[in-house]
């Protein structure tokens, strides 16, 4: 029982027009064909057609679409979070603010507003390891990490992170000792979580900018630790 992409999206449009009640708008009727052909060019055309329609109706501004894409492709990403983490590593007072009120602390960098969407930062230590997931969809801290990678939105990660977080972490190369407490944060509401990873040993001589360069996206989701700088490699 499979459908190809063309069937799926055609049905989605048709059903969208027919769905009148807020209860259970079925987006699709099953169709019992056995084509497995993916039609990416068709999908590209459908998306282009919708964009033209929305622009012609004055529902969206094409320049705003371009700006949104550029923003998330080039401006808002894990470098934002890395700067926050590095600053927290070098400034204990900032770290305390970050853990107490992430919005207030991140507004220093212009990544969040004090009154805007809410974020929570959880701290990894030698005894506690935090891991972020959204089992129900794909909630992710966009302002500091950008858009989520495919694995974060995938069924394997979403399903297993809550029941077997240590197994998931092992797949990322992180084998936690049994005495480390694992806390998984399932983002079920409109709070977005960021992990403050542990500052690696051997980084005492690095400045804030050099520290930020060590901080990876995955470490701020909690699936890895921040690796110490490699010997012989300049930071």
């Amino acid at each position, binding site marked *: 029982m499979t459908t190809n992409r063309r069937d*799926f999206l055609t049905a*989605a*449009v*048709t059903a*969208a*027009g027919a*769905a009148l009640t*807020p*209860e*259970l*708008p*079925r*987006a699709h009727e*099953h169709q019992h064909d056995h084509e497995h052909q993916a039609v990416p060019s068709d*999908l590209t055309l459908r*998306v*282009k057609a*919708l964009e*033209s*329609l*929305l622009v*012609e*109706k*004055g*529902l*969206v*501004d094409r*320049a*705003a679409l371009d*700006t*949104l*894409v550029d923003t998330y*492709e080039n401006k808002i990403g894990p470098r934002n979070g890395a700067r926050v983490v590095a600053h927290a590593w070098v400034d204990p007072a900032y770290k305390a603010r970050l853990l107490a009120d992430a919005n207030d602390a991140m507004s220093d960098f212009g990544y*969040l*507003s004090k*009154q805007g*969407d*809410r974020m929570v930062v959880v701290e990894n230590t030698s005894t506690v390891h935090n891991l972020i997931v959204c089992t*129900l*969809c*794909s909630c992710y801290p*966009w302002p500091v990490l950008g858009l989520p*990678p*495919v694995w974060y*939105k995938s*069924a*394997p*990660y*979403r*399903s297993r992170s*809550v029941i077997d977080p240590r197994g998931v972490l092992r*797949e990322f190369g992180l084998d936690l000792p049994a005495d480390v*407490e*694992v*806390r*998984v944060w*399932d983002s*079920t*509401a*409109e709070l977005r979580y960021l992990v403050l990873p542990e500052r690696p040993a051997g980084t005492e001589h690095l400045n804030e900018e050099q520290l930020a360069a060590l901080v990876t996206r995955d470490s701020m989701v909690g699936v890895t630790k921040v690796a110490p700088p490699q010997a012989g490699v300049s930071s």
Partner: protein
Amino acid sequence: MNGIHDMGGMQDMGPVEHEKNEPVFHAPWESRVFAMFAATGAWRKWNLDAFRHTREVLPPDDYLRVSYYEQWFSGLLDLLVRRGLVTAAEIESGVPAPGTVKATPPLTPDKIPAALPNRIHAQRDVKVSPRFQAGQRVRARNINPVGHTRLPRYARGKFGMVDRDHGVFVFPDTNAHFLGEKPQHVYSVRFAARELWGEQAPQKDSVYLDMWDDYLDPA
């Protein structure tokens, strides 16, 4: 809804596939779907809960088979039509219906920097008394609504401890269906891994879920 999207605790979905140097978008159409969703959201004709629900009602085999942004595209089409911004006939023809007066887009490039930090727009500055406080023992209700909910199956009926109160937020179970915001407190609630998964779980491990007042009973 006890749908395929509620997958916390399922097993045998395969290994986590980590792509090295992954691009933000894997094809230009993905970026356009993403941007159209963000830009049309500025009309405030729907909310994130309603959008999530459009994906949840996809048939389970479609949900698992199609890519993430295809889910978004189908959800966007659904909301555009259902909330009256375009008609199904316009989507089929690709042109505005005759006599359509051109609207003025609410989101222009200059407004984007200010709009992004308040994209979700779910917290409400209204006085609602919290039913619980930090340190209080609670039990997640055993509910099985056929509509949208953010109470995952794996936590229903389980005992936990309120960790902190995050303030007042719109309630997804009604908001997703345009049945009102029903603002109420949201708490981080700590559930011991052993409470959720049994004695084989490590003794100190836990899962924190964000829970609305309506998902909890005192315990």
